[in-house]
């Protein structure tokens, strides 16, 4: 498909982009840190991929090459955002105060994502990129080393430090217990220590 797209087949290019779009978008979204910046970075990355496709030489996989472009586009977007005076701290998503630290694990959907965005925002760019490439795109260490142009040992270290920092930020302190639905006694008691309601 890559070869066909390089040969000028527009349909093949369309298919190729669709196949990789979700991952590219995920990388941009996670590295850039906000929906808006992630979208901008994703758009930029796709255009760069298309324009540079004729020069893609196949030394790495297309995905690795595309993620590299996406990562760089996202980091560029971050730098642009940081250069914009007064807008650096503004995001399209509000921060959440978590009154109960233990509630983190129980939040789902949007809440989890907001917390994760905040946690990711506290990471240094290099750590964030390494963690995202590993845990979002499932690239292996050597591929990440290629994308970020750093040694494999550094990749390993950054991923470890990044994950640990995220765990601290997200207050993930212990492994969650496997979810088991509570066994309820017959009747309307919700707690074993609760006295049965007098139904008479």
């Amino acid at each position: 498909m890559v070869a066909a797209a390089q040969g000028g087949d527009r349909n093949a290019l369309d298919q190729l982009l669709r196949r990789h779009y979700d991952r590219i978008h995920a990388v941009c979204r996670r590295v850039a840190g906000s929906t808006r910046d992630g979208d901008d970075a994703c758009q930029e990355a796709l255009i760069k991929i298309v324009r540079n496709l004729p020069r893609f030489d196949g030394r790495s996989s297309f995905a690795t090459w595309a993620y590299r472009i996406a990562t760089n586009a996202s980091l560029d977007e971050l730098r642009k955002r940081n250069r914009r005076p007064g807008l650096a701290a503004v995001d399209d998503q509000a921060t959440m105060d978590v009154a109960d630290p233990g509630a983190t694990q129980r939040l789902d959907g949007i809440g989890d994502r907001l917390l994760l965005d905040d946690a990711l925002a506290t990471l240094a760019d290099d750590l964030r990129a390494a963690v995202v490439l590993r845990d979002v795109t499932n690239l292996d260490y050597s591929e990440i080393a290629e994308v970020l142009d750093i040694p494999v040992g550094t990749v390993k270290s950054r991923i470890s430090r990044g994950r640990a920092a995220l765990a601290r930020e997200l207050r993930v302190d212990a492994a969650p217990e496997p979810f088991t639905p509570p066994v309820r006694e017959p009747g309307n008691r919700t707690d074993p220590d609760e006295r049965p309601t007098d139904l008479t």
Partner: protein
Amino acid sequence: MNDDDTLLASAYLDGDVTEDERALVETDLELLAEVARLRQVRALLADQEPPSISRREEHLAAALDAWDRLPEAERTGAARDITPAALRRGASPASAAAAATITTPTSLEHRRRAAINRRMLGAAAAIVLVLAGGVALQTLSSSSDDEASSSAEASLPLEEAALAAPADAASESGDAATDGDRGSAEIASADAPAVAESGAELDTGIDNAAPPSERTLDLLQTPDDLALFASDAVGAPVSPDVPAATSAPIDDRLTPQQCELLAGELPLCLGADFVVGPAFYRDTEVVVGVDVSRDLALAYVGTTCREVARARLP
């Protein structure tokens, strides 16, 4: 839990451990807890909200649009840099050579060196021009007849006088003049072609550009003008090394060689991917370039790369 333990737990999670390390982790409850903690982080990261369909389609459409706007040769791979490997794959040497002339990249350093060389050449040409002008003026002033035309020519700019020199010299050499005059005329006629050539080269340097009134470069007044001027080049098969004369009008009076020199040596600044050509933006002579990735037309001073104006391409 120290950093080494975390590193080991993280590597274990990724399956990047030796058998010994694996055994070590699996027998240590603290390490196992750390693995579980990092696993949760990984699960959270992987739980990515999918982008909306409309956003995805918008992104893909923009990317395909960028593809459509690529030059045909680049889109089909014909303009790719040719390598021995590519030749082995079956590219014909002729198409390889043709493609190479389009896409061979020129480094910024190379362009700077070329610009310095051009300036030195311009300075040398200017010296020759002044000398030849002096000789021509001396010849004309020593001639007793046709004083009016001599004074008229003396008032011409030096470049024009030099360009006019061959005809004058030829006409004068035909006159019955003194030996001294003939000698001067011969010097003038011998120098004149060289001066004419160097004068043409001089005219191509942006540093030595003539005032606006003497050039017919496009005059751009507004960012819209700039965008329109630059947009003519977008979609045309151009690259940084293709003379902009092929993609945008520069000056109808210039020869193709002059156009090539003029366009080929213009610097790329401010992230421009290729140069459209020179123009006047209000009162400033600028180089107009296009940043393809940002869809921007950029007008900047060629010598300093100072931005004068920018506009989004229509």
